[in-house]
């Protein structure tokens, strides 16, 4: 087993990148993910990794350079947050459309305006449709474990798609917690060597990337892309099983917490799920049948599996740390789709919380679960979408 250390989320991811030792890393600093690249840049300067570090002038260029390096045949990584991801947006689609298995750490941060540097999921959710595999992480340990698995999933021969690992800005990126590191050689064996499919640098087999594709073929390529990303569900589980063998930690498509026989279910992503688990325990001790579901793989979304896990719940509260103005929160829409497609019709409410890094406290979870017990009793939901902790 590896060593245990007290460390920040960013340090954990920088350490993971050192262990992955990618061929190329092109990045531009942005709070709160800056420290990942800052530490990784020291590894490059100190010669402890073989990575070609490309310091570019913007995130658009960072992703462009990653795309070029990945097409050339390298294992490529980058890190960003918020506006940085937003500036990459155009290139995110190109990375996935060209089927380039780039791995990125996304330290979740709110989008401007107004400008804010703290954690929420508006960046990750905003890139939902960019064709990247998305894995979300509750804490530093999960982010560390997820990034190795993301590399494996992205590079899998049936998939060949970019993947991002998300963790909460500041709440996780800058907080110190105890976590376990795996030995370098164990990681090396786990991720293996990257075998590019069509490396541009293979001059004996010249290939063309990025041709014009007109209406006679475009939709066929997009259909194939959908098929590829959907396969990531199966591969995520296979990779998780292998990862459990080297780490003793087990991962699924999502984490169910005391969900069996739950009448009330709450759905919460990332760090806030940790906060709410304690509150779920308190209610369970009082005999109230409440459980929690923490999604992990958000793209592709495991609709059937999640609907099955939430199957018996009569009331579901979906929390969103991102908003879709004029619509329900992005997680609510997915869970509602999952339940509808499975033919279930639980009472479902949506709570928007924690935008711009507003703390999510145990009392917040407690108040919501109390409200859900009321809905369970009366069968009436009231306003479906509400903002919790917002001042009048």
């Amino acid at each position, binding site marked *: 087993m590896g060593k245990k250390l007290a460390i920040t989320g960013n340090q954990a991811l920088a350490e993971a990148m050192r262990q992955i030792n990618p061929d190329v890393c092109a990045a531009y600093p942005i709070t709160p993910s800056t420290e990942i690249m800052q530490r990784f840049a020291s590894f490059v300067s100190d010669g402890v990794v073989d990575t070609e570090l490309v310091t570019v002038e913007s995130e658009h260029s960072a992703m462009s350079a990653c795309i070029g390096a990945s097409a050339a045949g390298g294992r490529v990584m980058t890190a960003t947050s918020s506006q940085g991801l937003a500036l990459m947006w155009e290139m995110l689609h190109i990375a996935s459309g060209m089927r380039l298995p780039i791995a990125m750490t996304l330290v979740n941060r709110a989008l401007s305006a107004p400008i804010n540097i703290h954690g929420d999921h508006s960046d990750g959710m905003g890139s939902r449709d960019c064709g990247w595999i998305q894995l979300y992480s509750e804490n530093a340990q999960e982010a560390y474990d997820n990034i190795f698995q993301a590399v494996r999933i992205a590079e899998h021969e049936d998939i060949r798609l970019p993947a991002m690992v998300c963790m909460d800005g500041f709440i996780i990126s800058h907080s110190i917690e105890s976590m376990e590191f795996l030995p370098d050689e164990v990681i090396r064996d786990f991720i293996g060597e990257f075998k590019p499919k069509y490396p541009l640098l293979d001059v004996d087999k010249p290939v063309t990337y990025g041709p014009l594709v007109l209406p006679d*073929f475009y939709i066929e390529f997009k259909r194939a892309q959908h*098929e590829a990303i959907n396969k990531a569900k199966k591969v995520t589980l296979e990779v998780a099983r292998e990862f459990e063998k080297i780490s003793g930690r087990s991962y699924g498509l999502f984490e169910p917490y005391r969900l069996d026989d739950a009448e009330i279910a709450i759905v919460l992503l990332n760090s806030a799920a940790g906060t709410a688990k304690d509150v779920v325990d308190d209610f369970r001790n009082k005999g109230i049948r409440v459980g929690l579901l923490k999604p992990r793989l958000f793209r592709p979304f495991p609709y059937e599996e999640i609907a099955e896990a939430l199957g018996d719940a009569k009331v579901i509260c979906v929390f969103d740390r991102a908003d879709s103005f004029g619509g329900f929160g992005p997680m609510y829409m997915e869970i509602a789709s999952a339940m509808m497609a499975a033919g279930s019709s639980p009472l479902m409410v949506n709570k928007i919380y924690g935008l711009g890094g507003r703390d999510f406290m145990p009392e917040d979870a407690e108040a919501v679960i109390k409200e859900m017990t009321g809905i369970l009793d009366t069968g009436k939901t009231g306003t479906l979408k509400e903002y919790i902790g917002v001042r009048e």
Partner: protein
Amino acid sequence: MKLKGWKELEIGAIIPEAGNAEQYNTGSWRASRPQWIEENCIQCLFCWIYCPDSSVTVKDSKRGEFDYGHCKGCGVCAHECPGKKGKKAIVMVEEGN
């Protein structure tokens, strides 16, 4: 020709075969075609240099006929052609005439 289905395509629209643009017949877009008037030609090969589609064929350093399968009728060659004594060696003629 039966077009390939989505399961048969190369991933990411990658073209693994070099130089197969030749199989794509861009000549079908043409609205007007260049016509070579050999007696006005001074064999300067400006047309060959300027053609964006490699549609001026050259053999033994002498220009030959246009490759109408790929010439898309942009008119660049006709514009650049110096011709002989003020008489162009390339003129553009509307297709169908």
